[in-house]
């Protein structure tokens, strides 16, 4: 019987190695797999390249991982957050590198990586500093930049429900980057508020088919980042 369920978040992240590229789902706090990130902090992997739209807020979740000095490079579109000074400090001190990517290009690069497309042309960023040094090409009279697919060793994502095959459904705008990150990572680790038997998710409504998922761990009552930040929580 195929059963991708694993019991603890600690076991789920145990194989993440130093120097790994880790995609982390979420847009702001929506979809952020806080419990998996905290398990990764406990696990101790270092020198990570993290792909996320943002850089976290407060001192929990992704911001806590960055604060712990585990992230040597961020690939993201918007590394500024009202509630966090963690990334700006490390960036200014040169301890964390930044690859800034327009949000739609970031999404498309991740999707391309997952879909076996090594590179594609896009109009986004043409004529701006973010196109500097990139190959350009004119197609039917319009200029485009060449962008490369992005893959990862691991993805950490959060969903509403998963079955034992790893079929996933999400919650509202917490879906965001998670389905494409699940495609782009060699090992996709999922925290699910509900873990159900195969057949309990309508096959017409599955958002991430199980083929893109490696491990599922139940996190029944996931924390909300904004509530932790409001309470002044700092992890660990």
């Amino acid at each position: 019987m195929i059963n991708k369920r694993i019991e603890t978040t600690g076991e789920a992240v145990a194989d993440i190695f130093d120097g790994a590229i880790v995609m982390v789902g979420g847009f702001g706090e929506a979809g952020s797999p806080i419990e998996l990130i905290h398990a990764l902090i406990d696990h101790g992997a270092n020198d990570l390249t993290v792909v996320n739209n943002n850089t976290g807020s407060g001192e929990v979740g992704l911001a806590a991982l960055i604060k712990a000095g585990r992230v040597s490079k961020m690939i993201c579109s918007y590394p500024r957050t009202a509630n966090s000074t963690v990334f700006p400090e490390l960036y200014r001190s040169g301890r964390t590198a930044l690859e800034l990517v327009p949000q739609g290009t970031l999404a498309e690069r991740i999707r391309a990586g997952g879909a076996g497309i090594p590179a594609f042309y896009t109009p986004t960023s043409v004529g701006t500093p973010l196109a500097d040094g990139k190959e350009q090409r004119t197609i039917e009279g319009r200029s485009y930049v060449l962008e490369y697919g992005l893959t990862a060793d691991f993805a950490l994502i959060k969903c509403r429900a998963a079955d034992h095959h790893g079929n996933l459904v999400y919650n509202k705008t917490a879906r965001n980057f998670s389905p494409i990150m699940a495609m782009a990572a060699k090992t996709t680790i999922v925290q699910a508020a509900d873990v159900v038997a195969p057949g309990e998710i309508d096959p017409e409504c599955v958002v991430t088919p199980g083929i893109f998922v490696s491990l599922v761990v139940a996190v029944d009552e996931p924390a909300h980042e904004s509530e932790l930040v409001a309470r002044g929580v700092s992890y660990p």
Partner: protein
Amino acid sequence: MTEKATTSGANRIGLTRDEMARRAALDIPDGAYVNLGIGIPEQVAGYVPEGREVIYHTENGLLGMGPSPGLGEGEPELINAGKRRVTALAGASFFHHADSFAMIRGGHIDLCVLGALQVSKHGDLANWSTGAPDAIPAVGGAMDLVAGVRTIYVITQHCTRAGEPKLVESCTYPLTGPAVVDRIYTDLAVIDVIPEGFQLVELAPGVEFSYVAERTGAELIPIRQESLGGEE
């Protein structure tokens, strides 16, 4: 243009932020698919005239975005691109980020309303970075929006707080996109970007042409079809 004038403060003239949003909302066609940028543009949704239905897209994966649920209400996983809580209307749909930006890049969004640091007379937009060396660069979805959405409206104060024109000959800040802006709504005027440059469409109530022209960093082309009296 050498005169430094502020449009805020005691001797304020022109539109308030709410009035600018309301003015822009008048130009959003019935049935349009619209993306609203962060800041004043977000307020446009509150002013769509009676009898029109507009479908709002937020790039973090929702089409059919409804109004804010009110302070302390809503859900942390139902937010807009500005990471504020929103609602979903009947007929809404959720989708992932690659699909969301396929809507943007693929030309499916009719209209986008954005803020600006600078707009050049060629329609170049700078709205993501002042280029300051100590600033953390952050671009979000702005470059995708201007590259993909058919019509780009900008809402902005006519001048910076320091009184510098934001409508300029050419942008000194890093571009978000070249030749992308169609229309600009400021506290002082509505201005189109046409091949010849900044074309005045409408002055805010009580604002004179010369007042706007002096605060515009490139030639402001007067409204052609009517006399503007002594203002030229």
